[in-house]
């Protein structure tokens, strides 16, 4: 791609500054985005157009099998202490170093697993335009329902949180690990280590975490990069913060004076294949 990083950067700024409400909503970046009410209403017209197709797909014949009868299950066994592990079965064979090296592609936040290599924002830009932009958009804004990769800062408390590397993800290693194992979509594990560093650097640039297009990311400086939202995660605390859900005596009679309907799914009418007027005899 011949366009300079500088000119792209100014266009990107325009896109990111525009009112998020005007932007087409995208799926969550795993491809299965859970739509909001507002999204759903906005998408209604398009839905109608594709409903015919959806109906055809829904009624397509699938090969089904009946479930077998089941026997009563024994109670679960208690966790066995490690020391009391059962006698060895002597099954399996030693994994060879070459085999472990071939499969051990994961990367942790502390840098464990990072391969030697390096790549710049500029190099990442070129790769991104060639291999990623068709889905994610030239500036990571996402095409159609494909994941948005940039922007979203300050949106997490709002009506439409946009979760990107810049706005949400706590660890840079997550991006490297994911690109390395799963991207480009449909051609996984085809990128070199240098290319993966370059793409990760470009994502940092798209998210204004690095500002210099000459910035080079490598296994040497990788763990020094911190993401803005890293401090906003905490471990599951439901058993304390939601303690009120335990030990409650369920009310059985006259539990509330009146009940009124406050919302209806039919108003949105976004359910595939949902129309069937029943007959009562």
């Amino acid at each position: 791609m011949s366009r300079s990083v500088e000119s792209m950067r100014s266009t990107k700024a325009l896109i990111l500054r525009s009112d998020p409400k005007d932007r087409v909503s995208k799926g969550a970046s795993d491809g299965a985005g859970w739509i909001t009410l507002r999204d759903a209403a906005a998408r209604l017209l398009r839905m109608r157009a594709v409903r015919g197709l959806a109906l055809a797909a829904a009624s397509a014949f699938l090969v089904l099998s009946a479930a077998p009868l089941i026997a009563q299950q024994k109670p679960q066994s208690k966790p066995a202490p490690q020391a009391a592990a059962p006698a060895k079965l002597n099954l399996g064979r030693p994994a060879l170093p070459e085999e472990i090296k071939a499969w051990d592609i994961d990367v942790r936040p502390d840098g464990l697993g990072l391969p030697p290599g390096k790549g710049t924002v500029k190099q990442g830009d070129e790769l991104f335009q060639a291999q990623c932009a068709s889905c994610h958009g030239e500036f990571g804004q996402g095409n159609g329902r494909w994941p948005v990769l940039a922007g979203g800062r300050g949106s997490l408390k709002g009506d439409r949180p946009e979760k990107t590397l810049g706005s949400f993800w706590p660890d840079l290693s997550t991006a490297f690990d994911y690109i390395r194992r799963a991207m480009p979509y449909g051609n996984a594990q085809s990128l070199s280590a240098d290319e993966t560093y370059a793409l990760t650097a470009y994502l940092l640039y798209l998210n204004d975490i690095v500002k210099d297009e000459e910035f080079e990311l490598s296994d040497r400086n990788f763990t020094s990069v911190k993401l803005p939202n890293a401090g906003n995660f905490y471990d599951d605390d439901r058993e304390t913060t939601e303690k009120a859900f335990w030990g409650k005596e369920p009310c059985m009679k006259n539990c509330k004076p009146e009940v009124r309907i406050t919302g209806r799914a039919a108003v949105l009418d976004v359910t595939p294949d949902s129309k069937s007027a029943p007959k009562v005899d």
Partner: protein
Amino acid sequence: MTSQNTDPSLSRRRFLGGATAAGAGLAAVGAARAQAPAPDPLITDVQDWNRYLGEGVDKRPYGTPSRFEKHIVRRDVSWLTASPESSVNFTPLHELDGIITPSGLCFERHHGGIADIDPANHRLMIHGLVDKPLVFTMEDIRRMPRQNHVHFLECAANSGMEWRGAQLNGCQFTHGMVHNVMYTGVPLKLLLAEAGLKSNAKWLMLEGADSSGMNRSLPVMKALDDVLIAFAMNGEALRPEQGYPLRAVIPGWEGNLWVKWLRRIEAGDKPWQAREETSKYTDLLADGRSRRYTFIMDAKSVVTNPSPQAPLKHKGRNVLSGLAWSGRGTITRVDVTLDGGRNWQEARIDGPVLDKSLTRFYVDFDWGGQELLIQSRATDSTGYLQPTKDELRKVRGVNSIYHNNGIQTWHVKGNGETENVEIG
């Protein structure tokens, strides 16, 4: 084998005759409703299936449901995702009974499509903080002591579209990212013992062999408790879409952890913070902060019949049916209301009540044609009482996507039509 059932012209005649008889039957039923009772020709006339030979044992080497059941299928919501290879479809809960989900109706969730793997070419590697890194073939795994357990698998995003209000009109769509099957597999602790887990190993990374290389971190404590590495479901090999030939079974914990096409387990001293456990499957709360490692699926229930796709059709006797489950243990009680939560009755639980499994409940009731607001409310063996959606929103806000186990409301109208609603 007689020649009669292989004569093509005869088959055609039988087919046409059958269609005519069925049409006449419908007309007769309609007439019977309007006038004095007439004998039912389905009883007074000899039917084709009653006279002619049916298909022989050589026709269905792998049996499938009746042709009259073709509408009972998994369905997807095409506008949810960009690509069907990284998407989800939904179990038709309203068409099922008992507690076991037929293998072909278990909802699917893939991140890079269904991997097509010959079991002879599949390998499972265990390495990292172990004494001896090992590679297992499927043959090795099938030589290990195995166990059978029935467990539900629920996607953490099940009901995730309903956080901001009633949206999808059918329990298939609101609650259909759950299924319940019997797994056969090897306890993970046996596999880990073969490799010799080091004492500083606190987390495992499970990785799939699919084109997304799906990876999640699992606490060693859970792995040594009740995790199975399964090769069979409902008595036969895993279905391809459920991870054939090998998947993880993490009882009571969110479905995303149950890595399919499992090829690698690495032991480490810290979690990996993979994409599926940081950018996804963390719960964004109202204050803008996010809760992570929310593995356990809280107690939940849903009335599957009546529901929007399964309206009431008859006044008088009816069967209300539903499912309840908890990732913390067994279901001890389910209450049902027909009047929007003013008054409740305890439902009748029927069939096996198993640990971390779907549990079936019923209320047999008379319907006089009045409007109903139906809800169910589960209690589990830890004393957790399923909250209302508003109670959940109060503590979590509406941006969490995951872990919506709030009480579902169905509005049954006078004509039996049933709708997903919210009540206040």
